[in-house]
């Protein structure tokens, strides 16, 4: 130990490292965003190919509306949280949303690849919903902390972690939604509908920092498990890029939360996909249909 205040020293050094980290963050995000843009184009290409190769007039009409519908859907922007499948139910049969949702459901798909594209869209919607749920949870925690919900004070490291993780989850959600939007599907801007009530209930029961960290750990492990499972099911290489580069980050969030909780930070030899408790707390890998896009 030195005579100097160790934490003062560490804060100074760590601030410098944080600056470097934020620069890396700013540098990395556009690259991934661009990559996901390619992913969206790839999915649209699949849908277009589906239409072009079909001799069926109805399928042709659906396909011919793809470009226009894609624009219409994109114009819906963030204000409309309805998934592509929901939107198609109220749209004309020849709209692009219909093309997207038909492919998503596989109902009008003559090939496995278009069905795969639909599954990828459903999975991406679920992923965006999980990210939104995490943002919601961290945002709520940051809002409630000053009111004393978690005790007299929240350690600076916990507060900073919450801000940092929330920022990264926002970027993850934006990345998944960018892919959906470019693919002609609707962005998914709501928290995961299958888990929202459960998480709201759990959040209401949290009374201290460890309880908050445990809830966050559960959400991080759930997202990580979901994305890892999708590595075996997604069909589009660019969709794989998204989950491959995001899943390790969610797992890192979990490691640091475990450390803050006093637990061993790497409790599992392999990522677990099922529901777990304790330091591996997880609601389990979520199905692709969790967001309601099928």
């Amino acid at each position, binding site marked *: 130990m030195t005579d100097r205040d160790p934490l003062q020293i560490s804060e100074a*050094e760590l601030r410098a490292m944080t600056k470097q*980290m934020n620069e890396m963050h700013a540098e*990395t995000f556009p690259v991934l965003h661009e990559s996901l843009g390619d992913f969206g184009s790839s999915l649209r290409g699949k849908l277009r190919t589906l239409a072009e190769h079909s001799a069926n007039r109805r399928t042709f009409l659906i396909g011919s509306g793809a470009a226009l519908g894609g624009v219409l859907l994109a114009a819906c922007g963030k204000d409309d949280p309805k998934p592509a499948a929901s939107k198609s139910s109220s749209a004309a049969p020849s709209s692009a949303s219909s093309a997207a949702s038909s492919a998503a459901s596989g109902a009008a798909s003559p090939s496995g690849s278009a069905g795969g594209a639909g599954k990828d869209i459903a999975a991406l919607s679920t992923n965006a919903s999980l990210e939104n749920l995490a943002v919601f949870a961290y945002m709520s925690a940051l809002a409630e902390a000053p009111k004393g919900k978690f005790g007299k004070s929240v350690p600076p490291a916990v507060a900073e972690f919450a801000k940092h993780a929330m920022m990264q989850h926002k970027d993850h959600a934006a990345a998944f939604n960018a892919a959906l939007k470019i693919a002609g599907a609707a962005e998914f801007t709501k928290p995961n509908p299958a888990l929202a009530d459960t998480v709201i209930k759990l959040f209401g029961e949290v009374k201290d920092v460890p309880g908050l960290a445990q809830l966050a750990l559960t959400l991080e492990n759930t997202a990580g498990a979901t994305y890892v499972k999708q590595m*075996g099911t997604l069909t589009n290489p660019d969709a794989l890029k998204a989950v*491959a580069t995001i*899943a*390790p980050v969610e797992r890192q969030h979990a*490691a640091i939360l475990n450390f803050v909780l006093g637990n061993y930070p790497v409790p599992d030899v392999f990522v677990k996909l099922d529901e777990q408790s304790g330091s591996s707390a997880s609601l389990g890998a979520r199905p692709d249909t969790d967001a309601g896009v099928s």
Partner: protein
Amino acid sequence: MEHELDDERFRALIEESQDLNSDAMKAANEPLNGIVEVGLERRAQRGYADTVREERYERAQAQRLLVMAGVAVGAAGLGALAASPAYAQGAAEDVAALQTAASLENLAVLTYKTALTLPYLMKEDRAIKTVAAFAKITMEQHTEHGKAFNARAVELGGKEQTGTHPELTPVVMAAVPKLKAGGPLDVVALAITLEDTATSTYVANIMSAMTSPEVRLLFGTVAGVESQHLSTLLAVQALLKGGAPELITVKETGGATDAAKLPGAAPSIAIPETFKKIDLARKPAEGAVK
């Protein structure tokens, strides 16, 4: 002399880790059983071993069909079944990637094993005990990862990779004198490089269209653990550099860290990338069995 980590709670943790390791293949098979949603629903209710047996059967059937087609329609028929060589090519690429992954795991095991012989990692203070415990448990986890990669390589018709990564091994060996003359930060820095390399390589393999869903899933279940090793090491490095080694502790090595004293930026330092970069990824076939 082997470092004695005789804390009762730590022993419990080691035992727990060993239990986990003894169940490692089971744990690996569970997620592998989950990859049934892309045209594999019929396998959903079966065990991983059944899936593998089915794959072998289908492969054998394809070969028989190829022979039959050759007899029936001659060379033209063989040309029509060109997908089979493509399948073989894909499997060969998967085997090479798995062998390379095993070589990285073997190198990590060797590195942690070497680190655990260093005198400065045998001290009794809590931070060092925690770092040594991490090295020991992480070494065990890498051992199981190596076994899992090799098991899959063998299932796909390849050989086990028992050697260390040919390109990186000289780099690690060259670093050993520095480790001996240095301190914990040198070990941590080297481990960070190895963990980042492994994570990046597996993420790159998942991103590649060349690997089968089963292999991608295996890489995913391991990459998610290597990334946690990386994050933990980054946190340890930050705390060592920041002069706060007393905060490097977990319940099992003498007590939970004092979260109230953790520097505000420490958790963020441990998770520097919003999307995992793959700059350090090694080529998929670099560590293949020759």
